[in-house]
């Protein structure tokens, strides 16, 4: 597996440097420890939003730092959650006194590292509220798992909670909005091929020419099960039905439909998936009020996609529409 890198051990550092150079007007990159903050951070009286996680999911999270979304992103090594010594200074850097929300994808590593950082930040007098994102309907939330994973829904939580913070909501309210988004979003993904972690050098799993993995996460891990290859419409049905079942989408429900590429699938194919997903939702009587299609939460160069559905209400729609100015998501400004 060839990669446009210099050294597997400097991938994150160099990539973040490049990101900082390309978006110098928007973000500040801190090194040692590494984190990315919004240029104007801390924003006066605003609740600060910090997210982070393993690298390899770009543009998540650094691409979402800026007006109306995150105040800081904390990138770990590839597919490895960041450490408290990164999360803590990022938290302190964006605290204006109004407190900080940690948006954490539900993985053991992310939870533990953010937990520690939050404790340390509290010890330094910063109020921290954590919003746990666990939208992956492929994983049952039970005694027998580490709980549902945070996947595609993360972007929606970050955007909408970010808009709530930008309009001046207080700590509890921003966290509450984030939790409302998380409670109303479901996601399921598929992989047509594996990805290769730079330091590992070989694909994260082996998949036959006629097999696909259903119910994958975003770390190159295998999915819930493997099935023979199907066409795009068939796969779309397989992904969307469990999501709609989980959310109990009813006729008349207004939704946001988000088709997310895993990195290596052409945009044209994501639109083929979107087409079928929109048809299914229409057949169910749901109204697709907002949509997003693209590579936003990736697993390196994995081929595949995930489908997320978020049930909207007027407030969530308004917050989704609110101006956002980040490297990867921008409108209204």
């Amino acid at each position, binding site marked *: 597996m060839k990669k446009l890198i210099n050294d597997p*051990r400097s991938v994150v550092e160099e990539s973040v440097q490049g990101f900082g150079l390309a978006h110098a007007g928007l973000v500040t990159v801190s090194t040692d420890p590494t984190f990315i903050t919004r240029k104007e951070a801390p924003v006066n009286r605003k609740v600060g939003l910090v997210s982070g996680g393993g690298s390899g999911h770009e543009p998540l999270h650094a691409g979402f730092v800026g007006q109306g979304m995150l105040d800081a992103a904390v990138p770990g*090594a590839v597919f*490895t959650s960041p450490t408290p010594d990164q999360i803590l200074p990022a938290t302190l850097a964006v605290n204006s006194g109004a407190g900080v929300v940690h948006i954490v994808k539900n993985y053991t590593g992310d939870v533990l590292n953010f937990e520690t950082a939050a404790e340390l930040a509290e010890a330094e007098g910063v109020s921290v509220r954590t919003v746990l994102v666990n939208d992956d309907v492929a994983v049952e939330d039970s005694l027998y798992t580490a709980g549902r994973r945070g996947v595609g829904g993360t972007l929606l939580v970050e955007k909408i909670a970010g808009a709530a913070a930008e309009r001046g909501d207080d700590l509890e309210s921003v966290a509450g909005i984030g939790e409302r988004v998380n409670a109303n979003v479901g996601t399921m993904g598929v992989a047509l091929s594996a990805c290769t972690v730079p330091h590992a050098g070989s694909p994260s799993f082996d998949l036959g020419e006629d097999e696909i993995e259903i119910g994958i996460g975003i770390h190159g*891990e295998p999915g819930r099960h493997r099935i023979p290859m199907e066409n795009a419409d068939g796969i779309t049905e397989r992904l969307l039905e469990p999501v709609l079942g989980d959310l109990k989408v009813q006729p008349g429900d207004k939704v946001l439909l988000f088709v997310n590429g895993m990195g290596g699938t052409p945009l044209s194919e994501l639109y083929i998936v979107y087409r079928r997903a929109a048809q299914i939702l229409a057949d169910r009587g749901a109204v697709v009020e907002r949509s997003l299609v693209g590579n936003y939460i990736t697993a390196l160069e994995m081929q595949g996609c995930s489908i997320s559905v978020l049930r909207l209400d007027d407030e969530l729609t308004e917050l989704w529409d609110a101006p956002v100015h980040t490297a990867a998501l921008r409108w209204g400004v």
Partner: protein
Amino acid sequence: MVLDVVWAVKWLTLCAQAMAEHRVELIELDRAIGDSDHGENMDRGFQAVLDKLAEAAPETPGAALKLTAMTLMSKVGGAAGPLYGTAFLRAAAALGDSAEIEPAAWAGALAAARDGIVARGKAEPGDKTMVDAWTPAAEAARAAAENGGPDVLTVLVAAAEAAEAGAVATDPLMARKGRASYLGERSIGHRDPGAASTALILRAAVGAAA
């Protein structure tokens, strides 16, 4: 042989060596049921421990372990970072500032480490995690310290062997904690990477005393 700070530093040095040597193997284990980073994370973490040990010369075994804890916590990341960080921190606390570790104290340190991991990670034995190596290791050390009297090497060996057996015993288990749990039944038949690295760490403790 006494378990003093010289031994502790040698142990940590051998840990770093073991992680570098077994880096690919741990990555491969994690590739099968996780996200291919465990070997890389542990290698990075223990290399950083070596750097720290070169800078600061800890004066007691407890101080060496505390420094290790802080370094792992800030360099490993993922699930393993906080868990091993907690383990070394609790072990350091258990050892206090004594200059030499008696067999019973070593057994106590292992038990504290194990309890720390459980407190943070909420895994139970049988969940196919590093707990499945730490639990029998702490148990074996305690038993050896009680029965074997003052021979510290026996205790170290007992712990290492139990950890190794515990790691092997994770093969048939279905994971219920950590990333491997997403795989459900597909996690069966693979060794838990964290249990494997635990065995390497406790084997290094023997090597440092030999």
